[in-house]
């Protein structure tokens, strides 16, 4: 188990390196950089000298190889450089916002699991009844509705029905849990709806598939209560593909956060990423992309570890 774990962690290195190389050159292959956005952005008309001076100050005039060397050596010391716009270290910019986004992501996952597992199971057990149809319509709608629109509808409904809006300033959960939840629950719900739709669909098809297995027939033939057949024999086996989907969606949650944070005016990772792209802030974009990649590989590893927990037949060596 330990050897397997070490191997897996070592295997992450080439993937992350690949991402680091790819993102560095992708951003620089086409002309256009932050200096243009910064000095021309508001209709300014800077001279070539001012542009060059700013490039020199930011180190953008140096040969590509030299910049690449700096990026690579920085990576190994966990130094992602400084944001070209705010000129604060990229790690600080990210750390400042990670807490908020991570909390929303966790809550969205929790909401998704709480909604999706019972719904998917119910839908599978009551296949082709009106409950099944209702749940399926609910989930297909979840895939079609953009989460930013859902967020806006949530705000409008809260205002209309309760004449209340979520608080605008962020307070960490350990300072004021009530205020924190009142603000972050709604964006988590907007992201969580789509998330739960994806998971519920997987849960439904997984249960339907498992219910056809021989061991379910055996359990029923033995006279095991139907409730036990479902809970112990079917659900436990059906959960494996569902865990994969939960993990993949969690790793990709930043995608949902990018738009939702905009709607709820949250100063989180997603918002930072959009700002960085809008400003052509290369170092910040690189840092954010590395963060996404790390979340992805670590989540994948966690999912594989969870397999062993849920299915004792799986052993890693």
């Amino acid at each position, binding site marked *: 188990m330990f050897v397997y774990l070490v191997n897996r962690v070592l295997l992450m290195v080439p993937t992350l390196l690949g991402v680091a190389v790819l993102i560095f050159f992708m951003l620089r292959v086409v002309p256009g950089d932050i200096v243009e956005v910064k000095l021309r952005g508001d209709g300014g008309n800077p001279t070539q000298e001012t542009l060059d001076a700013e490039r020199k100050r930011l180190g953008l005039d140096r040969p590509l190889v030299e910049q690449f060397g700096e990026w690579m050596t920085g990576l190994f010391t966990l130094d992602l450089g400084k944001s070209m716009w705010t000129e604060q270290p990229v790690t600080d910019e990210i750390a400042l916002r990670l807490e908020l986004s991570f909390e929303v992501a966790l809550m969205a996952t929790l909401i998704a699991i709480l909604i999706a597992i019972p719904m998917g199971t119910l839908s599978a057990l009551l296949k082709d009844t009106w409950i099944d149809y209702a749940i399926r319509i609910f989930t297909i709608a979840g895939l079609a509705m*953009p989460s930013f629109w859902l967020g806006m509808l949530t705000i409008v409904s809260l*205002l209309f029905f309760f004449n209340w809006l979520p608080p605008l300033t962020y307070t960490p959960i350990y300072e004021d849990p009530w205020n924190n939840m009142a603000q972050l629950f709604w964006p988590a719900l907007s992201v969580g709806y789509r998330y739960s739709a994806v998971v519920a669909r997987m849960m439904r098809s997984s249960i339907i598939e498992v219910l056809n297995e021989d061991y379910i027939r055996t359990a029923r033939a033995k006279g095991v209560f139907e409730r036990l057949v479902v809970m112990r024999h079917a659900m436990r086996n059906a959960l494996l593909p569902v865990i994969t989907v939960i993990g993949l969606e969690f790793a990709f949650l930043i995608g949902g956060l990018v738009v939702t944070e905009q709607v709820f005016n949250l100063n989180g990772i997603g918002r930072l990423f959009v700002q960085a792209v809008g400003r052509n802030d290369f170092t910040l*974009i690189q840092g954010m992309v590395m963060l996404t990649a790390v979340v992805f*590989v670590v989540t994948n590893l966690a999912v594989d570890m969870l397999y062993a927990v849920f299915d004792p037949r799986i052993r890693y060596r």
Partner: protein
Amino acid sequence: MADVAIPAAAARPRRRNALLAFCIAQPLGAAGAIAIIVMGAAAIFAERVAPYDPVAIDFGAMLAGPTVDHWFGTDAFGRDILTRVIYGARTALAIGFLSSFLGCTVGAVVGVASAYFGGRTDMVIQRIMDILLSFPIIVLALVVVAMLGRFLVLGVDLNLILAIAIPMLPRVARVVRSSALSIRELPYIDAARVQGFGHARIIFRHMVPNVAAPYLIMFTASIAQAILLEASLSFLGLGVTEPTPAWGLMLSGNASDFYREAPWMILFPGLAISVAVFAFNLFGDSLRDWLDPKFKV
């Protein structure tokens, strides 16, 4: 020999009524197809269908709620929202079709080539695809936006189409590759090779036509994704720009300032996005069940 002719003869009438058979077997898919046709018609004939000019500013009717004159209300510039939703269909479908076609076609060729050549070529291509797959779709699209900037041709941002197509590429390539892998082992490919055909001919004439089913399925599913992605990018201010009417754009800018007081500003464009994505998903799912029930995306 005679029993070879029977399935061919039996297949013929089915082929003739394929459309009808599809509608009977997949009523939900047919409903999705009808919704798509209606949207397509609205997009093509927008000038005739829409009651107003999509960019006409009317300060006398700013932020007006739904009335007989303006069924869906007006926005902060007094522009008719129904008109802009209709014209928005043109933007969404044009970008959706073009980017899906580009992403899926290139993805399919990469997938088939990867499967056909195998060995080291396959490995290198698959590693690159794995890296691209480790990004959420919108993150990759945003990186491409940051990479390319804007490139307007006839009012269409070609780089936006690329930004939407590139995240699709690895997903399509992976699915098509796995279909192509099984085809590669079939005798007719060996036969083609024995006859001395070149790589390009075998790939394009013998393998590509046989991955048409997964390609079509991915293509319809991709259009739904593309419409959603275009709306998200436009919403973030990194996609379609004013004054072009686009659904995602109608939810941002002025709308984000006024929608609490004027919810119709966001209600209808958002509904349009949802219905479009819903219709393509519905049609795509049915097409999959119809063409290849075992297929999983």
